[in-house]
């Protein structure tokens, strides 16, 4: 149980998808102008990463490894991720058309989010069991959402700050992102994954 908890803390904070592995940077900069949209995107990404990692693990174990098709891994995972996004979109639309109208805008963006593929490939390297792999993917995506929300909060404050003209907009956002990454380095002594 302790190893399990440490693995999840490591995935979420120490080896954070955005700030340590530098994945998903386009959504990190593009969808973090408001906290509510960042939270919506974060939750949608968490759902897709977790669901697609379940499918990725099953395909890797029972198809690619079993028949020696490892060279098809990347293209297969991309197909699975696209299918998972489509499945999510169809399901949300079926479950509640109102929710689809409110949240559907984030879903197509996730297909091209490299964090989703990155986490899937990390799972394969980790050689984990099904539950460990799913929890690792869930923790990684929670770390992604956490950073998105923190950064969105900082950017909302930056709008009100008296920033020199030279640094206004994306430059100060990149500087703040760098400082946030350094702050997250403080977690590096806690656990390893």
């Amino acid at each position, binding site marked *: 149980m302790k190893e399990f908890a440490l693995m999840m803390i490591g995935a979420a904070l120490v080896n954070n998808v955005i700030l340590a592995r530098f994945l998903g940077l386009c959504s990190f900069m593009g969808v973090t102008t*408001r906290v*509510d*949209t960042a*939270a*919506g995107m974060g*939750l*949608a990404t*968490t*759902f897709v990463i*977790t*669901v697609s990692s*379940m499918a990725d*693990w*099953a395909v890797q*174990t029972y198809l690619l490894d079993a028949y020696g098709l490892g060279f098809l891994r990347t293209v297969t995972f991309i197909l699975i991720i696209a299918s998972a996004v489509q499945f999510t979109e169809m*399901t*949300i*639309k079926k*479950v*509640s058309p*109102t*929710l*689809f*109208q*409110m*949240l*559907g*805008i984030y879903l*197509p963006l996730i297909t091209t989010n490299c964090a989703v593929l990155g986490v899937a490939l990390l799972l394969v390297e980790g050689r984990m*069991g*099904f*539950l460990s792999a*799913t*929890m690792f993917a*869930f923790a990684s995506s929670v770390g992604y959402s956490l950073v998105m929300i923190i950064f969105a909060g900082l950017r909302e404050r930056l709008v009100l700050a008296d920033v020199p003209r030279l640094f206004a907009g994306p430059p100060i956002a990149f500087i703040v992102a760098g400082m946030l990454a350094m702050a997250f380095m403080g977690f590096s002594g806690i656990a390893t994954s």
Partner: protein
Amino acid sequence: MSTHTPNLSPANSNAALRSVEGIARVVRIEGDQAWLEPEQTTSCGHCASSASCGVSSREEAGIGTVTSRLQARRFHLDNPAGISGFREGERLVVGVSERALLNAALTAYGLPLLFALVAGGLTQAAYGEDLTTMLGMSGGLALGLLAARLNARRLAARGDLAPRFLRRARPDETCGTV
């Protein structure tokens, strides 16, 4: 574009303070209901002028096109203030409360995930096999989606998820500037 601006009720003014706003275009009026289509932010960030940058939202509807996606996201406003003044093609600023957006996201994504992870954990503890855990987690996910459906129905019945009319959009206002 009409210059008439309907009076906002206190509820609408309050919604304007703590809401996520977006621009939608009136595409059809049926009795006391106005059907709206949200404007899509394109790569250039100017939805209203997108016809000039090659990413037009007025292209023909087809599978996977921007137009078909927008049509799928059409919604209606029930008896909004001053509906008699609305015309087809008019651009309106609509909003949903931040809390509604968060509730919707938690319902749609959080609830199924919670069910799936709990079911997976319980199955693993009971059987300790990957295949059984996978089946248990898939079952939990299906159950979670059912719970999400019920909760979404409850929220919709309370009117928590309904977008509200806030004001008419200025001619130079785009979804990137709201």
